[in-house]
């Protein structure tokens, strides 16, 4: 199910769609489908509480980009970079702000370099902790737990059409 809603934010039209999934496998598959026409230079801001399925969502994106290595949680190292064999995207940058209070550490590990790189896709877990680092044209993904298995995935992206 999907309900489009259009609202203007700082001059850019954003489109919000919502989906329901009932298992981690479904969440991953949803991400894979949505990411199949992903453009290089996209920043995806992921929000959702512990265990909502954020890393699972990133696994789906990685699959869509043809990444075959295991995408593990980057909580410990803050950022993991995956080289990608894809016609437009060179690398997937997987960031996790779970432990952070501010953005200076992400600057320290070199995130900004990738945020302004037109050949990278950057996915930021716990993006709500570093609002100043999230570009205004980022795609926002909010995952909410309905119960132990069911999740709603709400995706707000700038409408480029």
């Amino acid at each position, binding site marked *: 199910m999907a309900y489009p809603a259009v609202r203007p934010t700082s001059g850019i039209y954003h489109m919000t769609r919502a989906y329901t999934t009932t298992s981690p496998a479904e969440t991953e598959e949803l991400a894979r489908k949505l990411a199949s026409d992903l453009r290089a230079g996209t920043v995806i801001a992921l929000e959702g509480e*512990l265990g909502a399925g954020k890393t699972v969502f990133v696994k789906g994106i990685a699959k869509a980009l043809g990444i075959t290595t*295991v995408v593990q949680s980057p*909580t410990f190292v803050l950022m993991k970079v995956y080289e990608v064999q894809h016609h437009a995207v060179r690398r997937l940058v997987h960031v996790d702000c779970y432990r952070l209070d501010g953005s200076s550490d992400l600057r*320290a590990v070199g995130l900004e370099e990738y945020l302004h790189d037109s050949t990278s896709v950057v996915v930021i877990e716990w993006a709500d902790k570093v609002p100043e680092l999230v570009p205004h044209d980022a795609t926002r993904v909010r995952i909410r737990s309905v119960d132990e298995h069911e999740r709603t995935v709400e995706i707000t992206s700038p409408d480029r059409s």
Partner: protein
Amino acid sequence: MKVLGIETSCDETSLAVLDAREGEMHLEKYIVSSQIATHREYGGVVPEIAARMHCEVLLPLLQKTIGKKPLSAVDLIAVTAGPGLITSLMVGVQAAKTLSYALRKPLVGVNHLEGHMYSAWLGNSELVRDTERSFPALVLIVSGGHTELVLMRGHGSYTLLGQTADDAAGEAFDKVAKLLDRGYPGGPVISKLAQHGNPAAIDFPRPMLATTGYDMSFSGLKTAVRYYLEKKRRIPREELPDIAASFQQAVVDVLTAKTVRAIDEFGPRSLMLVGGVSANNALREALTHIGSERQLRVWLPALEHTGDNAGMIAVAGYYHRDEASLKLWRTLRFDPHLAFII
């Protein structure tokens, strides 16, 4: 041969001088300066602070490690080149390169995970004396950032059998400790709570236990603990030890099940448990039990060498001494994503 080991891949600054020869080695000097107290308030390592602290303490620690002896007494310099936090790695690597150039001593870069494997050599003189008898060895590496099952056929010969599909085992400990509002680091906190708990009290899931292959998963277990806590709403204090013990048991069960399966398939002659989580008593006991049941030698690092330390880096450097070079100071690069299989 005297090996100077340098380790700064995360939040421990460590230096060691290892006196090593064929069949015998001992740590002459060994210092670890931990930053855990500093990072505790953030619930984890803060890269920028970690890097600054490495810079501050590295040279005083070097002075302390070497003492009155001339630095030229060192025959080889071994440094962690990755994986780890980029900002932390660069401090140690830069220091090692400078020393190598200034002292004209050969330099070798060590993979941090391989270093952990060699922590088993520290304090196990029988393993040092006759290493070949322990090969192939099945090595379980468990820490805050890693969970890997590796078959070590000989020095430098590794096959990665399995790894975590999501969270590292140590990360699960940290996250569950946070759910229980018990602070950081989670390993010792959970382990202590679990001492007085019933490991069979709650039947938490054992993810991927039934799957073939050796990959593991701990993310769903963390989520299960979260839902257990939410459903109960109010958790009486007396129940915390049971939750901790049941969670810990689920982690141990997953790790040991995959280990046992690998023993059956590959028939190793020894079993090694290394990495920060190898300090966990329940896991040490479980692996020791498996080893004695199957008549395998079990090598566990001494507790003081389970965490990040330069002693293990020096040992790994010693076994890689053939790759050391006087010219490496020009080209050695730190790599936060350094792959394990070299």
